[in-house]
Structure formats: C-alpha cells, structure tokens
C-alpha cells in the first residue's frame, strides 16, 4: 500500500493536469512543485516559464524565488522582464498559467492583496505580482490551493486577479477572450467550472476524502457533478520523484550558510 500525505496528493494531481506540449507560466510555491513534477515525470518536454524572464527552464531543485540562478542557468533563453510580459504573456504565447491564492471564490477570482479593507487592512498580503495579467492572458488557468473555510470564501476581500467574475459569461464582458480557471486542484478534490454557470463543481474526490470533508472546508455551498470520479492515488514513481525533488531542494536552500 502506497502511503502519501494530502499535500502530496494535491501536488501529484496538479502535475497531472499539465500536458507535454503545454507552455506554462509558473507561479511560485505550490504551482512550482507541481509544474516541475510534471516535467520530471509524464511531461518531459513541458515548457516552464517564470516571470523573471526564464523560458524553458529545467531546474534540478525548486527555486525559493522566481528568479533563482538555477532557473536562468537551465533555461533555453532568458529575456528581459518587459519582453516577458509584453511579447510572451500579453502576446498570447502561453497556454497555461498555474497560480495559487490566499483567498478564492467559487468563480475562481483570486485575492492575494489584502484581508480586510484595502486602505486599512487586517493583513497586508504580497499583492498581485504577475497574476492579474497571467489570469487573463494565458490560454487557461489552473489553480492549486489547500482547501479551508478561510481560503475558500463566498466573497473575497479584494479581486486581485479575474477568474470567471460573477459567473456565466461575465469574464468576457471585461474584454477577456481566454478560458480562465478551468481546474482547481486542492488537497481534498478537483473542481472544474460548471459549463454554463462557471461556478466550481467537484468532479473528482481524492481517495479517503468524504463529501462532508469538502463541505466542511469550503466557505461556499459546494456543488458536486452528477458523476464524481475518484482521483487515482499517486504512483510510486510520482511520489519518489516528488520526494527526491523536495529533498534536493531542502539541501540546496539550507546548506549555504
């Protein structure tokens, strides 16, 4: 029997969402682990792009920042940041944006700016960075985030990056013609937008997780698809590659002082 943690299940599920011919704009943190796991397993030709300007990077360890030297040294090419955002992202050359969030609503709108009021915040978060334009310029967006009532809320405090707006065809009303969030991978399940309403519905539940677990950890009223799949457990290969990647990363980031 293969043993794994909920976080490993999430990372593996997120990695499986990527295809070998995808060109993926990688957010830091959880997305970075998933994207590199995909590259090291089923999608060796996957093109990973980080906003620091590195195109086609193949890091041996996960970067701590989006601009670690490892990313540049292993890239096909490194371009200036204005070129990255203007030609490659805005120019429509990137098929998938992979993002995380601090707060998320059921339409995949993302908050990474503030908890509370913008002018007098309870918690000041880092802000949007590349996300506002990644969310609208990439062909589609995958989201990865641990599920909790605090993070998965009915109404986010600030719309840093557009998902499906108010649902339905609202996204298009902002002049955005890309697909937007098409998959949300959590430590409990996988959700996909309803074809018409565009609100996230649960389409696959990770083994050992109940519908009640998902409902209890979600701040909006959870909807389930008519047919809900059970997510395939991580293979031994996936877990081995992921754990080795994390071990190499810990060693590289911890032993420099």
């Amino acid at each position, binding site marked *: 029997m293969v043993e794994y943690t909920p976080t490993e299940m999430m990372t593996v599920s997120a990695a499986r969402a990527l295809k070998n011919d995808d060109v993926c704009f990688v957010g*830091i*943190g959880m997305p970075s682990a998933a994207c590199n796991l995909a590259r090291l397993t089923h999608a060796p030709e996957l093109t990973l792009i980080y*906003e*620091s*300007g*590195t195109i086609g990077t193949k890091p041996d360890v996960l*970067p*701590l*920042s*989006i*601009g*670690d*030297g490892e*990313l*540049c*040294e292993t890239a096909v090419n*490194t371009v*200036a*940041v*204005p070129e*990255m*955002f*203007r030609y490659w*992202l*805005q120019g429509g050359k990137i098929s998938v944006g992979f993002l995380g969030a601090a707060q998320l609503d059921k339409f995949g709108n993302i908050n990474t*700016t503030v908890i509370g009021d*913008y*002018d007098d*915040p309870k*918690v*000041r*978060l*880092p*802000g*949007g*960075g*590349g*996300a*506002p*334009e990644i969310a*609208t*310029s990439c062909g589609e967006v995958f989201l990865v985030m641990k599920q909790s009532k605090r993070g998965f809320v009915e109404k986010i405090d*600030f*719309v*840093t*990056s*557009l998902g499906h*707006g108010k649902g339905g065809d609202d*996204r298009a009303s*902002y*002049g*955005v013609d890309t697909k937007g969030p098409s998959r949300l991978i959590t430590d409990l399940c996988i959700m996909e937008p309803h074809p018409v309403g565009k609100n996230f519905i649960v389409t696959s539940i990770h083994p050992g997780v109940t519908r009640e677990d998902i409902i209890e950890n979600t701040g909006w009223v959870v909807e389930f698809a008519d047919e809900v799949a059970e997510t395939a457990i991580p293979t031994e290969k996936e877990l081995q590659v992921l754990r080795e990647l994390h071990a190499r990363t810990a060693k*590289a*980031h*911890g*032993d*420099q*002082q």
Partner: protein
Amino acid sequence: MVARFMSLKEAVASCVKDGDTIAMEGFTHLIPHAAGHEIIRQGIKDLTLIRMTPDMIYDQLIGAGCAKKLVFSWGGNPGVGSLHRLREAVQEHWPHKLEIEEHSHAAMANAYDAGAAGLPCAVFKGYRGAELPRVNKNIKFIECPFTGESLAAVPSIRPDATVVHAQKANKKGDVLFEGIVGVQKEAVLAAKKSIITVEEIVDDFGDISPNAVMLPNWAVTAIVEIPGGAHPSYAQGYYKRDNAFYKAWDPIARDREAFLAWIEEHVMNGGPEDFAAKREANKG
C-alpha cells in the same frame, strides 16, 4: 557626460537627495543591497521608492525610515513570507505612515519601458476585471483610436535616480549585465541619473556576444566597484543567492528591536567593504 568611477559614499551623495524618486532594481538577481545600506547610512529621507519586488532591500529602507512612498507590484520575501517592515509600515504606520501605489508586474514593466522610451505613459492589455484600478488613481483605461479596444494605461516611470548592480564594468565605464536582466536597462535609461555598482572592473569584457546587455559609459552617471554588493541577492557567475539569509531575515524583520539592532550593527557600523566576504561565503 561619461560615467565617473566613484566611492559608494560619493555616488550616493551626488545622485540621491531627500525627497527624490528612486528606483533600485534587480529581479531577484543583482539587487543593489550595498547601495541600499549607504542610503540608510547617509540618513536620506522622504524618498519615493520604486521597485517591482520591494524585497529585503526596501524592507530595510522602509524600516530605517527613509521612505515616504512605495510604488511596487509584489511585496513579499520570495518563498519565505511577508516583508515585516513593509507590512508594519502599512498596518501600524511604523516608523511612520507609508503611502503606497500598487501595480501589477506587467504594469510596472511596461511603465519602465515607456520611461526609457521617452513616453508619458504605458499602454497595455492589463488589469481586466481586477480591482486595483479602484484604489490606484494612476491606473486608467483608454480606447484604442484604431480598433476601439479598451486598454490599461499607467504613467511611465521616470526616476530622479536609478540604482542597479551589474557583473562588470570595463575601464571606460561601459557596463555588462548577464543572466536574469530584469528591468535594469529600462530603469537606468528611464532615470535622470544612475548609479551602477559592479562586482569588478575589468580591462575588457573579452569574448562576449554582440547582443549582450550593455550600457555604454555615456548612458551611466556613476560606477562603483563593490565585490559582493548584491548579497544576499546574487550575481550570476560570482556567487549564489543566499537563500538561507532570506530565511534568517524573517525573524529579524519581524521584531522592531531585532531589526534596529541588525541595522545598527550591519549598516550603521558597516560599509561596502563588508560585502566581499559574503561573496566568498556564497560561491557555489
């Protein structure tokens, strides 16, 4: 006006004054930390600080009381967490109230590019469906005169001075950047004055690509040789990013007293010559 080689003290004193608008760039790579320390040591106040990722360098300047305003697009300690001095300035107004002007990376990258290009504003496909335009009056939407498409517009960035770090200058004062080049070239060309700190000054650059990222000496104000001057950021080809120090910064910056003690010991009682040892320690 050809670039002059100066001491760091002289370069900062001649290019940065109270109330100026300053950009200190370097996208994770080549962040001019030694120059940031010198601004703190000279007690320069009321600065408008521009930088896409404020990072540890602006956490230090903000905590030390040098900043009146921050223009930025992502304010965290990458892979570690919050910038606690920035966060406390915003949430608790310590050491004083900090005005913020917040953008996205795409907006700032475009705004530097427009500044370098001599344009009053940058136009791009951005901020669609996003809430920042509600809280930042420097984000507007204009209509394309040809297609009618709605486009975001932000003022171009034109700093009084830009400060960056690079790998090399030659004896004539031409500057070479390699690796992740960020927005350094755009930020220098957008500014009235510039300080470039470099790892080393060489006789010539040797065999480099004709397309290498260069700033000719007449496009730069001051050059200062500071080995290790980007630490704990990195200089590709010289030393690695000191990720362990980025992690160590978290508890230092979290506590006012610990922060002030760190600034006293390493900045007020330190100098640019201290950085060479950091370069040695982080060779990989």
